[in-house]
């Protein structure tokens, strides 16, 4: 049986990218081999370790357990889309400052999963962070420093959101002012 390749087009880290792939190609291989985004790692390849975690339409998923064709026309965020070396994402900055990584193999997936957790629960308790880490495995850190990093990231992100909130409130005020005037 001749099986045609499929064109898979995604918006990844804000950029539209596409490649022709076999239907059996896993999403993680598409990212790494076809799009050259090698920040996403493959640890276990059996849906356990979470090293391959990325965001698909805003939700954290294991990209070793999804086909590239299933992701067609989706919005993806990989670790490359989080921040730049000059402007780290709060999660990256906190992992750095709190020593949330040693070898770094698990780190891209862990950060994506933890961003997924903070989207659901912006102010998690230590226990909730540990529960949220069910889907990731780190063989180096013993997790304690990851927990500290996530706590710090949550704090920075909450402060930033509050500031944004103030900015929005302020712009509304300006708006009202203009209106009244």
């Amino acid at each position, binding site marked *: 049986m001749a099986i045609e390749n499929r064109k898979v087009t995604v918006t990844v880290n804000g950029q539209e990218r596409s490649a022709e792939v076999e239907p*059996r190609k896993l999403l993680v291989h598409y990212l790494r081999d076809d799009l050259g985004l090698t920040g996403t790692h493959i640890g276990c390849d059996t849906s356990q370790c979470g090293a391959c975690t990325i965001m698909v339409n805003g939700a954290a998923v294991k990209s070793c357990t999804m086909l590239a064709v299933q992701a067609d026309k989706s919005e993806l965020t990989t670790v490359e889309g989080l921040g730049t070396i000059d402007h780290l994402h709060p999660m990256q900055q906190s992992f750095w400052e709190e020593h949330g990584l040693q070898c770094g193999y698990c780190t891209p997936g862990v950060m994506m999963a933890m961003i997924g957790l903070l989207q659901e629960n912006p102010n998690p308790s230590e226990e909730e962070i540990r529960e949220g880490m069910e889907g990731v495995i780190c063989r180096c850190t013993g997790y304690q420093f990851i927990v500290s990093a996530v706590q710090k990231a949550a704090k920075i992100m909450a402060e930033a959101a509050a500031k944004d909130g103030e900015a929005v409130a302020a712009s509304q005020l300006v708006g009202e002012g203009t209106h009244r005037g």
Partner: protein
Amino acid sequence: MIPVKFDYVHAATVDQAIKLMQDSDGTGKVIAGGHSLLPLMKFRLTEPDVLIDISRIDQLKEVKVEGERLIVGALVTHHDASKHPLIQAHVPLLADTASQIGDLQIRNRGTIGGNLAHADPAADLPAAAFALDAEIIIQGEDGEERMSVDSFIIGPLITMLPENSLVTGVSFSIPPSHAKSVYLKYFHPASGYPVVGVAAMAGTDKAGAIDYIKVALTGVGDVAFRAESVEQTLLGQKPSEKMIREAARLAAEEGEMGSDLFASAEYRENLCKVYTERALRSILL
């Protein structure tokens, strides 16, 4: 690990999915979240010629109340089931169970319909489905039919799903508003799957006697089951620690205990009793 070659098609509607299954002549398989199917395909334990992707049929993502029952679309993910306001309000047991499946990432992909259609003896959802008298809504070549979950799941990975048909949703009975519920599982530390999972619901009348009780267990044998002996022992009684302990001793009565590398049958039987007791204490005392 890479699956063997297969072809891949999208179904835009339920009718189209059925047509595509007919066309595949038994060699096609439906894929929803893919979180049971893809791991099997990667191990080459199953090798369908064509995957029929139903994940974009929006009609299968709806949740609605229909009289005394809540209808949950087959494609509702475990994550969405755990957060959906109608599910939380009417069948909190389902929300509670869904929130304990796998991990964050698994819950974002796995679906209610896929979980029950897969009929994994170690899955969590069957416990809630048995306790909530679930009916599986099936759309096939000859129209729609409904099957109670205990006649649908008949063995490990074996269901009565007719050829060329789809699970479109699951209908759960809405328990009376005074009933409390809990899902409690003892999970294998590596896989997260239950070695035993107990879904329990119970409520008491004004005089303090138990007037509503459902208990179902999963993970311990080939199929989930209702612990009817426990239910019957407690119905009409005023709950006490002693009563609950005695009733919970019957928790394994209706089930057949499996034995594997994780746990012997004897150990599983003990876990059934201990977890049923804990579950009932937490909602009745």
